[in-house]
């Protein structure tokens, strides 16, 4: 079975390709990327003319999602999360271990992978816990989890609480060649905070989470990454100060990388006042920061300091959000809005090129997690994200594939969206609003 995609613009920063190319897929793998590939013998190749308005990229990888299974299946399951992923243009996701039970052992890792295999949608890469129960005391069985399929370690949702544990985790994960991903927050400074500490939280009488609570933890992790020589990855970086620290550390050669979430480069804390005061879909951790932080993150996305766009997809049931602001759960869903937000607010805004966007969403997360993909190499699995960069998109939470609807972007009009998602040569999502993609069939 061969599939030939013709006429689209292909962007693959890893091989320096940006132009009209055809892609031939054979047995789920990329057989050839070249100009004007002939269809060959009629009948054995399905030829799909996509045309120059569409862009084919190596499959996007969201390295920070919460799939909630096991334990919180009313919010999301591996299957619904994987469905949301392909609908959002992601061919793979890495899921955080703060499930119930915590993914702190190979048996939980294997369970998640079994659910992912049954769903057979986006690829799912489990992230194992740093500490048993993510309670910050004893290291979890990292080698066993690595062998079971974990691609990184994190106590996300919580920081790795002590510098000593972070040191040990970096040393031990370094032995395994895997990164430690840290949710950087000094809980003693953050306290019971629910919003960015600043003028707007003061106006609203909301307890503040100061930028410093993130900045000191990022600085700590950089010091420990330098000390151990291991790779620390900063999750959902949100402050100008933390970005400055990462920029400086990279210049010194420290093995540190970082990701930024779409809500942090599109929104800032004045949104808490209007149009809907105390909207719990604007409550996340780290919180929406000051506009100057948002601008700094945009600059970091432009200048290369930021390695990855990751959504921190955090599904919550409506019951967890339709409550008082300080009682509401932290987090928003992100899988089905990230690509449109990145295209609209970064590419069309002239901040970054499409090629840079592909680095942020594909090449870099693949490199950091050391997973396949991130490039269009002949012989590799055919994981492709097809973009319709000029598609007019209106975000509709009601039509999300995710089980949860907790998004602040409902009703937003954005330019650019996903045309189709291909995983292992299988077309798993085709956007019915994109006529040029109709040849890929209906999914």
């Amino acid at each position, binding site marked *: 079975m061969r599939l030939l995609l013709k006429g689209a613009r292909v962007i693959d920063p890893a091989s320096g390709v940006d132009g009209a190319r055809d892609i031939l897929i054979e047995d789920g793998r990329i057989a050839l990327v070249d100009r004007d590939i002939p269809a060959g013998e009629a009948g054995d190749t399905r030829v799909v003319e996509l045309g120059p308005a569409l862009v084919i990229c190596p499959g996007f990888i969201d390295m920070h999602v919460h799939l909630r299974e096991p334990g919180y299946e009313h919010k999301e399951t591996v299957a619904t999360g994987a469905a949301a992923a392909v609908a959002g243009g992601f061919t793979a996701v890495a899921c955080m271990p703060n499930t119930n039970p915590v993914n702190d052992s190979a048996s939980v890792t294997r369970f998640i992978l079994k659910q992912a295999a049954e769903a057979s949608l986006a690829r799912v890469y489990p992230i194992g816990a740093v500490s048993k129960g993510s309670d910050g005391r004893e290291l979890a069985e990292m080698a066993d989890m690595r062998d079971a399929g974990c691609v990184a370690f994190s106590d996300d949702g919580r920081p790795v609480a002590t510098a000593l544990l972070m040191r040990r985790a970096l040393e031990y994960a370094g032995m395994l060649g895997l990164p430690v991903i840290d949710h950087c927050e000094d809980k003693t400074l953050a306290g019971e905070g629910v919003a960015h*500490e*600043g*003028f*707007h*939280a*003061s*106006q*609203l*009488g*909301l*307890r*503040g989470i*100061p930028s410093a609570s993130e900045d000191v933890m990022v600085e700590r992790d950089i010091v420990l990454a330098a000390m151990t020589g291991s790779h620390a990855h900063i999750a959902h970086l949100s402050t100008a100060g933390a970005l400055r620290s990462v920029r400086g550390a990279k210049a010194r050669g420290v093995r540190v990388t970082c990701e930024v979430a779409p809500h942090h480069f599109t929104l800032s804390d004045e949104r808490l006042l209007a149009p809907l*005061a*105390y909207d719990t879909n604007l409550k996340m951790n780290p919180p929406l920061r000051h506009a100057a932080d948002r601008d700094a993150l945009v600059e970091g996305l432009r200048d290369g300091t930021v390695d990855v766009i990751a959504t921190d997809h955090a599904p919550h049931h409506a*019951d967890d959000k*339709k*409550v*008082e*602001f*300080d*009682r509401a759960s932290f987090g928003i869903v992100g899988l089905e809005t990230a690509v449109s937000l990145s295209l609209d607010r970064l590419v069309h805004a002239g901040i970054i090129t499409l090629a840079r966007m592909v680095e942020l969403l594909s090449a870099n997360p693949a490199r950091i997690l050391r997973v396949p993909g991130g490039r269009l190499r002949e012989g590799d699995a055919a994981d492709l994200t097809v973009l319709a960069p000029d598609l007019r998109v209106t975000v509709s939470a009601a039509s999300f594939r995710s089980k949860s609807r907790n998004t602040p972007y409902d009703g937003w009009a954005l330019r650019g969206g996903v045309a189709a998602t291909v995983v292992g040569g299988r077309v798993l999502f085709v956007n019915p609003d994109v006529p040029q993609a109709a040849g890929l069939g209906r999914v």
Partner: protein
Amino acid sequence: MSEQAVRLRGKDLLGIADLTASEISLILDTAEAMKEVSARPIKKVPALRGKTVINLFYEPSTRTRTSFEVAEKRLSADTLNIAIATSSVVKGETLIDTALNLEAMNPDVIVLRHASSGACHLLARTCRAGVVNAGDGMHEHPTQGLLDAFTIRERKGRLRGLKVAIIGDMLHSRVFRSNVYLLTKMGAEVWACGPPTLMPVGIEQLGVRATTSVEEAVADADAVMMLRIQLERMQGGFFPSLREYFQVFGMTPERVRLAKPDAIIMHPGPMNRGVEIASEVADGPASVILDQVANGVAVRMAVLYLLAGGGDDETAA
């Protein structure tokens, strides 16, 4: 410039931040008429006859709840009080579910006191009934701000150009926020004073002058407003001891003498004598603390009347 408002724009009073100066003036002017009602031998008018007002209190309150209840009764409303004990451990029914149950009984106004900032916004979005904020978390306590302004205006004849010093725990205080929004909108010069640990971030963006010197704050002030200091704040590490707090920030007769000779001393209550205010000051000739309580009834009558009273302009003959 702006015309005098003759009604409030919304169905709710969630905070002073939402009001225009004209609306504030309307409430204060209406309160003057209401104060006259309270001075009559028969302290009752039929303005809210047949209207139902629910006082829904999630935090213990004696002063504010009683004041609302008196105001409602003097307007002839049917009132009922619901006190719900809550803790973060026992969740119980959600605020929205409680609101929907009350809504089913078709009340006209719900007066809400709640420990969470923004709880009134949630209620107002859920209910057709008008919602009056009787204090939400650390956010606002608009009727307190209004009664404080009413008291100042009553004594000074105006608000514009006055120097008002507010001293105490500004970080956790909804009274502080409502007063700042109101007084700055009405053209007063507000000074805020307290330990830096109890000042909200970005305080000067609220339009106040912030200082840690109580002498500077009080100097030539027309009104000095003390905020309650809670013992938990000491345990939370915001300041070392109540004793030291009084030494540095307490309102003493000596400090009062730095203010204008006719300055008034205010406190929203309940007071901690010897912590934020010396008894000689609280009970002294400049104190208007009990006037504030009396004016609270008038202001709440005005708010309830403007939100739920009349309302039949179109059908009025």
